[in-house]
């Protein structure tokens, strides 16, 4: 197991260090209190840095944390001390860009909370139980944003609004590409 690149957690915090969405894949933090303590430590350590153009990196308590901020959204990916930093950064970039695509450019806390379902699905698509599932932001966003009806569903079950939604979906996705 230890040879496979391992993600310990992915965090999305706001500008005060509060949780927007977090996902832990490791038993290193067994309780919610331990998790919150870790988030607080990460946040205070990174708060003053300017991780807006390029992803930044720090190391503490034998974890490597890569992070990137936009507006009031703070993205973090944590790995073990022997992890390849660049792999972690790739995962971070995938998460960061996918959220950007899903929030359609208005990346802030309000928008993120309003689309929390998308963000949670996004996390679900990036890592499965500490193993990297996908790192390409376009693929991740594409998988999350397929809000359409089951292809097998009869057309009559689709309402006009749903049909419109599907159409809009296709349009935006073609624009985003």
């Amino acid at each position, binding site marked *: 197991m230890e040879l*496979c*690149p391992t993600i310990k957690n992915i965090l999305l915090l706001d500008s005060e260090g509060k949780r927007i969405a977090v996902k832990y894949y490791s038993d290193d933090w067994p309780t919610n209190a331990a*998790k919150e303590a870790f988030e607080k430590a990460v946040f205070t350590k990174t708060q003053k840095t300017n991780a807006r153009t390029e992803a930044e*990196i720090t*190391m503490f308590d034998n974890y490597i944390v890569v992070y990137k901020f936009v507006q009031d959204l703070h993205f973090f990916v944590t790995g073990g001390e022997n992890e*390849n930093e660049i792999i972690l950064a790739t995962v971070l970039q995938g998460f960061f860009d996918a959220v950007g695509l899903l929030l359609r450019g208005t990346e802030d806390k309000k928008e993120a909370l309003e689309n929390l379902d998308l963000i*949670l699905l996004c996390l679900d698509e990036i890592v*499965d139980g500490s193993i990297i599932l996908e790192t390409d932001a376009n693929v991740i966003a594409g998988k999350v944003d397929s809000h359409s009806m*089951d*292809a097998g569903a009869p057309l009559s079950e689709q309402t006009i609004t749903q049909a419109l939604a599907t159409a809009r979906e296709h349009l935006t996705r073609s624009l985003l590409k």
Partner: protein
Amino acid sequence: MAQPLVKKDDDRDDEVDYSPFLGIEKGAVLQEARIFNDPQLDPRRCSQVITKLLYLLNQGETFTKVEATEVFFAVTKLFQSRDMGLRRMVYVIIKELSPSADEVIIVTSSLMKDMTSKTDMYRANAIRVLCRITDGTLLTQIERYLKQAIVDKNPVVASAALVSGIHLLQTNPEIVKRWSNEVQEAVQSRAALVQFHALALLHQIRQNDRLAVNKLVSSLTRGSVRSPLAQCLLIRYTSQVIQESTNDTQTGDRPFYDFLEGCLRHKAEMVIFEAARAITELNGVTSRELTPAITVLQLFLSSSKPVLRFAAVRTLNKVAMSHPTAVTNCNIDMESLISDQNRSIATLAITTLLKTGNESSVDRLMKQITNFMSDIADEFKIVVVDAIRSLCLKFPLKHRSLMNFLSNILREEGGFEYKKAIVDSIVILIRDIPEAKESGLLHLCEFIEDCEFTYLSTQILHFLGIEGPKTSDPSKYIRYIYNRVHLENATVRAGAVSTLAKFGAMVDGLKPRIFVLLRRCLFDNDDEVRDRATLYLNTLGGDGAVVETDEGVKEFLFGSLDVPLVNLENSLKNYDPSEKAFDINSVPKDVKTQPLAEKKATSKKPTGLGAPPPGPPSTVDAYEKLLSSIPEFASFGKLFKSSAPVELTEAEMEYAVNVVKHIFDGHVVFQYNCSNTIPEQLLENVTVIVDASEAEEFAEVDSKPLRQLPYDSPGQTFVAFEKPEGVSAVGKFSNMLRFIVKEVDPSTGEAEDDGVEDEYQLEDLELVAADYMLKVGVSNFRNAWESMGVDFEHVDEYGLGPRDSLAEAVNAVINLLGMQPCEGTEVVPPNSRSHTCLLSGVYIGNVKVLVRLQFGLDGPKDVAMKLAVRSEDETVSDAIHEIVASG
């Protein structure tokens, strides 16, 4: 250069922070979840409710068992809807709720239906969910689908199945191992991530088969891997193979090195870095092999991406420990990183420079660091302090400027850990560089004038008491010490009193003045301070005469405690206040070897001020209690040592037996720990028949059989031998387990009345010289060595013949002697041609023994050793040589 920070939305901060989850409450959301049961489902609303539930869980809210079950059942209803978005949310929340086995059954059929659906997204997610929540029994049912999914043409489905396979391998290895063929096919997939996941799974399936891993690596390194992540995996597997194979073939080119080097030219940065790191971590890497890796890392140092700079500098920092010269080429790039915005990078750069720098660059470097120190956090400063300490030990001539630097930063603001690191460093420098002693002590004196940490003050006072009297002018420290008596809290005052007394005891000329000071302390308002002053005045002869202090008194007052503190603490805790006084000799002296985790190969970690590191509480107490509870053995006296258990049977045999050797002065007791692994048997009257014909000095005196040995509940039987008092008699014992076996009816658990006598051959047991040696560490070997004196020193040289490596030879000798390695000297740096190892221990009869071993490589493989033994008894010194000579 920093782009303008995007302004936080100040205007919005003024309003109440809007959130769609404002005022959300668990109870209300659980109520809302009832809409899942509506006959006409509204997918949008259902999605929203699930999002709210997930939000609560994400914020750390927990559901009770009942609540979770209720939500789970409601959620299962949502499989009726065909809305894809809703279905996705259903998958996520099922994973989050992690239902119990009996609940899983409810969704199994729905998920299995999705697993065979035409929609790729359903198939992929249903596989992931089902594999997450399922147990082994269900797995056989869905195995067929999973195998299909692995080779599915949709990469998402294939990846889902492969990743699930990786997880399932932990719980159901035998099932997943059957998928090898499909996984192998998936390794050839065109989709990048499928290849990555397939490779990870394939390797895990085969990881215990070295040959198969070898084959896998050699076929893939020929180039069919497209995904960068998969390539990284391959690099890791390759270096593992290299690691294992170099042990066999030391000559010639390293296998697969060309592959690693080729990866340095890969287009993906993660692969380049992975390969560079793998090369730097190769066992015994040569500078020719290192060069290309260092070159790419050097390029990374000037990258615009902080992550790359960090990764590179961190790796180079590690390389600098073993191959400082290889990194010197990067020094210019490294120096520009000192001003890096990212302080982690800056710190790593500095410490690397400190490791690679030469004597002439020290002063320039120190100037740069001084500016840098003020704006980094304490934890980084500690790293820098550690690096400076090792630099100073490397270039003792530079001690003046480095010591000045340390004392300057000691005066600045800083937390306890930081100050402690500095003080520890100064103490180590004083210890190891004689010229630095006087200035270092004065720096410490100045520091305690204004030190807010009681712990550090007392530690420094204690240290002053040891080192101060040995300096050319001890009297100049008195002022600093006596000031503490006036100005500090009780703990520090008590420490200062002890230190004063030490000066008085060691420096006869100062005695009258010390007595005056000590008498003043008799009026202190703290009990401890007064008690100490009284004790010292009385024992040192408080009449003020300039007389030499009696050695016995010195030993009593300031002698080192020769028992580990942990053991002493345990014994004191167990001591019942009674008529019988506490006997310090009853405290076991055995030190458990401390975990070696933090002892990195080359940098021996100095322990600084503190006493020897406390070992974990020993099991000796437990053995002692056990043995003293057996009346037959009570007369044997005090237990000297108990060995670690020695296995006398192969693993997984019918009966498992191991033995613990208990050594007494005139006796040896073997404790056989037996366990019965056959449920259908009950053993009775279990004894071990010991044949001591090859151990002439031993005579069996007693044995204690084990009445019953039921299945799976271990028991002990004992055999005791008499041996000549105080002598390290050795010998070989053959053992036979004898017992009466009775059949047990597994259904009722009752044994039959009639049993059959049976025997079971165990492996031989040897009593060796090391069994008479206790591992007892000393905190400062040099001091201990010098105070032991040359009276009973015995030095000789030995040829150890051809050995695999120096480290192997060192370990062999340590194990042979059974002594405690001191100061981390049991670790041999790779590639060294010579090594000195320091050992200490207590030999039977309570004789302290110190050993200095000097190893050298003589020719390609032959190891020569010089053994110097000092002990309190000449016969013991000779005995140690005999052990080595005969070993």
